[in-house]
């Protein structure tokens, strides 16, 4: 099992650092690229967790679509690429850091308290569980109504976005 652990830690550290990069970077484009690292890391973690389909969806939609969307957003708002240190942050930076660290501490305490000793056991069945066939079946059988609702939502969002961004 140690291979998984090693892989997990490498990816986890990379994700954590990149996450800090997202929220601390002084350059908007760099932040977006850090975000790509985090998202890719997540995809890798999904693969570790044998959720193959979700992993690829993550890569395609998140990295492929959403990040591109972000870059467009950056371009359109003509945000300056680089800012002097701290310009991108507001005045409650310190308080925010305290609150986030505090929250992280609280969450960690909770998690350790609640899930101490629970293990993720990997087996061959799991590979099947995360396969596209299995997931697809689940979506279109059990969760078909939510699926439709989400589709509607997406459509509405699309229309809404167009409506909002129109120049008149």
């Amino acid at each position, binding site marked *: 099992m140690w291979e998984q652990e090693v892989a997990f830690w490498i990816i986890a550290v990379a994700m954590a650092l990149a996450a800090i990069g997202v929220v601390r970077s002084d350059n908007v484009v760099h932040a977006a690229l850090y975000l790509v690292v985090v998202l890719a890391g997540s995809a890798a973690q999904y693969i570790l967790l044998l959720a193959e389909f979700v992993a690829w969806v993550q890569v395609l939609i998140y990295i492929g679509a959403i990040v591109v969307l972000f870059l467009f957003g950056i371009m359109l708002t003509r945000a300056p690429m680089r800012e002097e240190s701290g310009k991108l942050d507001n005045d*409650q930076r310190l308080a925010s850091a305290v*609150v986030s660290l505090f929250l992280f501490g609280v969450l960690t305490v909770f998690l350790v308290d609640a899930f101490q000793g629970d293990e993720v056991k990997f087996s061959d069945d799991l590979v099947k569980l995360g396969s596209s066939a299995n997931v697809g079946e689940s979506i279109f059988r059990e969760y078909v109504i939510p699926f439709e609702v989400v589709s509607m939502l997406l459509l509405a969002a699309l229309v809404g976005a167009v409506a909002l961004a129109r120049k008149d």
Partner: protein
Amino acid sequence: MLDNVWIIPLIMAVSYLLILFFGRRLPKKGAEIGIVAIGASFILACITAVQWIDKVEGAVGKEGGGHSGLAALGHSVVAAATGAPEIEPVVNGFTWWQNNRVEFVVGSRVDGLVVMMLFVVTLISLLVHVYSTAYMHEDRRFTHYYAALSLFSASMLLLVISANLLQLLVGWELVGLCSFMLIGHWWEEKPNSDAALKAFLTTRTGDVGLMCGVIIVFFAANSFDISVINEYALSPEANHGLLQWASIALMFAIMGKSGQFFLHTWLPDAMAGPTPVSALIHAATMVVAGVYLGLRLYPVFWEGFSIHAGGMNMMAIIGGVTILIGAALAFVQNDIKKVLAYSTISQLGYMVMALGVGAWLGAAFHLFTHAFFKACLFLGAGSISHSATHHSFDMREMGGLRKPMPITFWTFLIGTVALAGIFPFAGFWSKDEILATADQGDFQVFMIVGLVGAAMTAAYMTRCVYLTFFGKYRGHHHPHESTPAITVPLVVLAVLSLVAGLIQSAPFEIKKFQEWFEQVGGLPEEMIVPKFDYGLAAISVSLATLAIGFAAFFFFRREERGALKGLTERNKLAHAGYRFLEKKYYLDDLYEGVIVSSVKGPIARASYWFNMHVIDGVVNGVGRGAARLGRWTYDVFDQDLVDGAVNDIGRETAMAGGGMTKLQSGRLQRYALLLLASVGIIGLAVYIVNIA
């Protein structure tokens, strides 16, 4: 009188109030009240002493040949604790306040140590009172000065007679206050008030130790009563760990009050006060309060520091270090009072070291003799500044005062010789007692430290005497002998410095000091009473004499050399020749560099530098650091973080002066911050409640 000894401090307290409220209207501006009161106290103290001695001698008589028989065996008598009859201290008290479980008693205690201290304090205080009439004549705050002296005597006597630690603590703090008032007597000048502040704060730092120590001892022995505590400390059920902590804490108090190494820096600064005050408070009485505490609670230290085991302990080490540091520093001072101040530090180091090496009797005895000769020296210095140098204490402005001030000179000389420990002056006997105990009690290292210290003492005092009284007068005034109000106390003290040591002089079969004053009820039984060691005495005296000789040689020679030096320089200007003289000059330089350097040169200077920059720097730095830390805490922490957080939330509110509705800043992120913080807090609270 033994039962009513509390009257003595009461007289002084009443005198304080009288002087404060009525002193100004009296012809002598209050001095007469003070002198009458202290005179009465002195008489009462003498009566107490006589009664106590009667009691002791009576008990000895009743026991039959108990004591004298043993004395006949020679000098190997073991302690009075085993041989002589145990005389219980006279303790009186009434409940001051009570608190459910515990009663706090205020009361008096009379035993040998107390009697001795009463005598010393009232005597020196009386002399200082008299002396001050001349010295402080025409002072801006003459009345206040006398009031403060009275208050000081009252608190010091209260400290001395206290039967319990709480009362001792009260007296202890009060003498600190008086010291503050008197050091800062001329508070118009900032250096004086600085010195006063420094003295108060440094001793108060030590008082933290006293407070903690008293509390620890209280909970260990379940009482504030000194007898109970001492009994507890020597009993088998004593908790060694607690006693150890208590000893360390109390040691801290001793270091603060008695100017021991690294809390000593306030004492030289305290010389900013009037000279009689320096004599009374900063030489003879208040500063020995720390040593008195050590003597008083000796069993606690005995057990806490395991003194009976020999070798090393904190008390002896600190005392020893203080001896050397103080003596070395005394070499480089130009201010005569500073020389004496460092000498006091060094001598207090002797007493503390004596306690550390198990020489209870030596410490008490040295306290006794030191009070006389050091007071004599200080008052002598005061006499000089009063009548010769116009309130300057700079030895560079003195010199050659032997002729115009014969009484001052002779008394000062006697004080010096006593301090240097030359036979048969007072200092010799007490110093020898300490050294002999250290030698015979497995503390040889400290014996050597003591010997070195004695030699250094002799040398720097020679320098001091030389600079002051010999050579040519270098000042710009007209030196003349002081008035009788000043010289009489000097003579009294000089006589005492001469003879006080004889009451405990083994070769003459006199052991009165031990007989009378070691009766304090419950000293450790294993304590060593040393045999008189002629060899050791000879070594110490010859070392001191040698040091005096060396120093005298050096200084008297320098006078000659000064002439030569001048010649050299002249000739260098004229001929650029006279190699012989020049060579001699180099030799002298070498001589000075090699021999004297070990004491006077780099070492003394380095230690002085270390003292002024490192230790004093640390002490001052702690003060400044505290202030700076305060500023930082206030500016950054209080105003920015704590208050800032509050203000951030309330700023719009408060500034707009409106109602609560304005708490809405309209900024989403602020809301989000509060939301998340609350979520975290509530989550944590729920969690704590669940596990609690």
